[in-house]
């Protein structure tokens, strides 16, 4: 699998993502600078976490206007898989590649801790390594992760099986204490119509290494490598 990680001014989990991808794929991914207009063909594009442009104005709002994002949008529409994590998720919603928006956390504070999320469906490129309904532990680290969309959009997302992950307790229950940011219907991640674009708030790249306290999300990267080999 050849992957590309897009680097914006202010990206800060680009290195983490490069490490996780290299671990899974066995070779280093491409780091693509936001100012570039083009890059070589790849099997997967990742928009990493961080604070692109300082999150000033709105998280992700300014990164959307980088030259590289036109190319990312074009390839996403052509079916190249795109993964947006945290700030990357915010950028993909701002770019209109995913519906909805990420608001300030309901408790207003930045939150960094391990949470649990349920894999809503194993029927996607990204979750082929899981069982539907499986609960995985993964860290979050964000200030604006409170997913919002209107009811009509949410009903459509649910109806089309496009809710990727939901926050839950370790036992798989949905309740407010298990939801770190107040996101609507406990949504942690969603797909586009073709399930080739995934945006999620938690950090899979920080949960693939046994030394760092968890490998629950290694399967996501391993599954991608197997599928995109």
């Amino acid at each position, binding site marked *: 699998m050849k992957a590309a990680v897009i680097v914006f001014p202010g990206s800060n989990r680009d290195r983490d993502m490069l490490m996780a991808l290299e671990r899974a794929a066995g070779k280093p991914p491409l780091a693509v600078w936001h100012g570039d207009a083009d890059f070589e063909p790849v099997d997967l594009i990742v928009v990493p976490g961080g604070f692109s442009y300082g999150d000033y104005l709105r998280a992700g*709002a*300014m990164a959307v206007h980088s030259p590289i994002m036109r190319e990312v949008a074009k390839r996403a529409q052509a079916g190249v898989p795109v993964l947006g994590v945290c700030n990357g998720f915010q950028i993909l919603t701002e770019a209109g590649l995913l519906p909805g928006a990420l608001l*300030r956390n309901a*408790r207003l504070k930045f939150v960094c801790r391990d949470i649990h999320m349920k894999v809503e469906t194993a029927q996607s490129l990204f979750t082929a390594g899981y069982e539907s309904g499986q609960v995985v532990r993964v860290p979050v680290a964000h200030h604006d992760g409170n997913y*919002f969309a209107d009811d009509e959009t949410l009903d459509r997302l649910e109806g089309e099986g496009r809710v990727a992950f939901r926050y839950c307790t370790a036992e798989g229950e949905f309740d407010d204490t298990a939801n770190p940011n*107040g996101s609507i219907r406990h949504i942690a991640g969603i797909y586009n119509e073709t399930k080739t674009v995934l945006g999620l708030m938690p950090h899979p790249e920080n949960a693939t290494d046994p030394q760092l306290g968890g490998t629950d999300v290694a399967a996501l990267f391993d599954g991608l490598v197997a599928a995109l080999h």
Partner: protein
Amino acid sequence: MKAKVHVTLKTGVLDPQGKAVQHALHSLGFAEVGEVRQGKFIELETGESDPTKARAAVEEMCKKLLANPVIENYSIEVEG
């Protein structure tokens, strides 16, 4: 000419910051305060001298960058 833009969350979008401000005002004794909505205020020099053109330019800026239409409304004031 200068323009002032107010960006606010749409009604129906939960505004946790507004809620926190309302709560704080209540605890300070402003018991009669009703709903509080927090937004952004942006002041910019448009570089235009014609008010209609200035407004049209700022309208574009709002659509493209300054506001996110999924969650936010905006209003524009052109000065002068």
